[in-house]
């Protein structure tokens, strides 16, 4: 923080000293942001972010890789510009992505050279950037203004004031904000699934039920309810980020899945009229008593209800939540973890807030008969949910031809022995569990593909079955920094772990492409 403050001061001083040109030109790093990205097929591409009012010369782009690899840039067509000095030149006035055709070995860095100008009639010296996968921007020093192709030695003394730092911060905060926004949207998406049905009676009971007066109060109570919901999710998110534990594995345990499925069956039975879904009368009156004595009215209990409701929605939020938690666990960023899950909960709560704001008016008034049919439909959907959630439990029973056989490994030591014994052959390690949905999908859909079969013939195939989640299983997962299956790891022919791994499901085409790049890497 201090450093940043100091930077700001220095920047201001320098600007004042040098009578900076009033024209608000961007520093080259902001006018043209270069980023190395991985394409779907495992190749490389360099993405240039061209600020509006700036352009890059197409014929002044060049790329080389470090260490050298055969990569051929595929420059897209540009726009033609009539240049008073150079004539008709092809330029890129907008963002452009240059695919680098070929198979880059893992860890290859790309040196991109490019040159461009501002429409305002100012040109920037040729820029050279060493790009790595996953870098938002080039390193701070290289991003300094002096990073011209020619600027090899000497005093770079000059300082890119706002450029390097501000751009940097912008990038990082931008990506964090994007993650959180994404989680919010995912929350809204989740809210529109059948998962929310169990919440509706609770919402209407608490918020629109007796004792609530006026729309504003209903909205206030819904907001509190959603905050309660959000609190639970935030805690889960923080826990995931902090511990990076096998939380997701736990969520996929057969017992947990079974309980979730049973819960949905129970909800469905309620919809079919098997029993009344309501709090016991004594509870309700006690709740009312407490609420009346508390200054905040129903706020407290409603908040608690919200927090508990998160557990109710939990079941069908579990699969996406598991994926989200795995991601957050890997990030290890507590603020991001909490923030993202908070945003997710707010997203889930948004439709509820709308109901709260609009009051009962928004709920369609149905005749008793129609209401009964609606409930039936809900019940059927809920039963369907139960079956779907329990998928990992019954899917294993379906007949499946074991297209590709794997040799089981049970511990880190055993795995290392087998990898050592495989010298000369690449190794694939499949982290599998009976309850892992995408593992089973992978086994049923991807592995039987004849092309995949043929390709995998050349691999030593190991499988770590972590269904039991034993201490050895946990150790295996931890050893590779995994949070649970599904995961495919690869060792190259020299017995070195390849950095590329497959987390999640891949269809045959995608998996073949992955195998291709794994084979191609040294």
């Amino acid at each position, binding site marked *: 923080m201090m450093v940043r403050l100091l930077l700001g001061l220095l920047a201001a001083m320098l600007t004042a000293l*040098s009578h900076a040109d009033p024209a608000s030109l961007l520093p080259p790093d902001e006018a043209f942001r270069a980023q190395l990205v991985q394409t779907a097929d495992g190749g490389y591409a360099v993405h240039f972010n061209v600020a509006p009012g700036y352009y890059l010369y197409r014929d002044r782009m060049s790329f080389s890789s470090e260490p050298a690899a055969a990569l051929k840039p595929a420059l897209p067509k540009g726009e033609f510009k009539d240049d008073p000095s150079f004539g008709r030149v092809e330029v890129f006035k907008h963002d452009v992505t240059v695919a680098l055709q070929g198979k880059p070995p893992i860890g290859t860095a790309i040196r991109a050279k490019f040159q461009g100008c501002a429409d305002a009639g100012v040109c920037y010296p040729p820029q050279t950037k060493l790009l790595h996968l996953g870098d938002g921007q080039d390193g701070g020093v290289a991003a300094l*203004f002096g990073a011209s192709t020619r600027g090899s030695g000497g005093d770079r003394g*000059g300082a890119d004031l706002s450029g390097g730092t501000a751009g940097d911060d912008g990038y990082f905060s931008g990506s964090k904000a994007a993650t959180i926004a994404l989680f919010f949207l995912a929350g809204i998406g989740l809210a529109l699934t059948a998962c929310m049905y169990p919440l509706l009676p609770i919402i209407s009971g608490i918020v629109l039920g007796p004792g609530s007066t006026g729309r504003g109060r209903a909205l206030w109570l819904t907001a509190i309810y959603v905050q309660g919901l959000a609190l639970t999710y935030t805690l889960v998110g923080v826990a995931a980020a902090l511990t990076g534990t096998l939380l997701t594995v736990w969520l996929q345990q057969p017992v947990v899945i079974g309980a979730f499925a049973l819960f949905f069956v129970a909800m469905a039975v309620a919809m079919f009229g098997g029993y009344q879904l309501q709090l016991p009368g004594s509870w309700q009156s006690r709740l009312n008593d407490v609420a009346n004595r508390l200054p905040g009215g129903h706020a407290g209990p409603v908040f608690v209800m919200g927090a508990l409701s998160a557990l109710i929605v939990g079941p069908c939020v579990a699969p996406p939540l598991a994926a989200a938690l795995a991601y957050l666990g890997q990030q290890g960023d507590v603020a991001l973890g909490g923030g993202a899950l908070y945003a997710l909960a707010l997203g889930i709560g948004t439709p509820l807030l709308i109901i709260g704001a609009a009051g009962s008016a928004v709920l369609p008034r149905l005749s008793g008969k129609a209401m009964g049919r609606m409930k039936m439909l809900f019940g059927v959907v809920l039963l369907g949910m139960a079956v779907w959630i329990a998928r990992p439990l019954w899917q294993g029973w379906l007949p499946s031809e074991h297209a590709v056989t794997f040799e089981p490994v049970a511990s880190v030591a055993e795995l290392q022995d087998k990898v050592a014994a495989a010298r000369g052959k690449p190794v694939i390690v499949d982290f599998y569990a009976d309850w892992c949905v995408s593992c089973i999908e992978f086994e049923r859909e991807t592995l039987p593909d004849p092309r995949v079969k043929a390709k995998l013939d050349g691999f030593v195939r190991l499988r770590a079955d972590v269904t039991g989640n034993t201490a050895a299983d946990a150790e295996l997962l931890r050893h590779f920094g995994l949070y649970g299956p599904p995961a495919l790891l690869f060792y190259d022919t020299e017995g070195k772990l390849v950095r590329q791994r497959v987390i999640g499901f891949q269809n045959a085409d995608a998996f073949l492409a992955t195998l291709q790049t794994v084979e191609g890497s040294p």
Partner: protein
Amino acid sequence: MKSRHALLALTLACAALTAHAGSFFDAELKDLSGKPQKLSSLKGKPVVVNYWATWCSPCREEIPEFVTLARQYAGKVRFIGIAIDDAPAVSAFAKQYKMNYPTLLGEADAMALMKQEGNTVGGLPYTAIYDSQGKRVATHTGRISAAQLEATLKTLR
């Protein structure tokens, strides 16, 4: 991250110091034949310093106007070009455009000098004008018109 910021701060501090201590006329740059030239030799008369490069279209556009003005103000105002470029390209260009004022060359050093002299962003062309006492009186980023330049030059007389 931390060390990067620290490094950046250090660089900035250095730049700030040189901006205080050094002036344009204390610098030294190579000429087209590779010989180092002291900029202090330019002192004593108003100076127009134009930073440019052959790969820079707007720079190429404005140089004929500098040539005209340099002839017009011969003996009253000194003109000097500083090219962020390589010698063969600049020599060829100077011949082709019949440049009647000297051009010095530089890479990182010239960029640093330009930055020190007020071009924080680093775009070209960049023109800085000094009075006969060596005080910088005006700067301009981007293509400068002959009229703009003359207006400034007139105030110096």
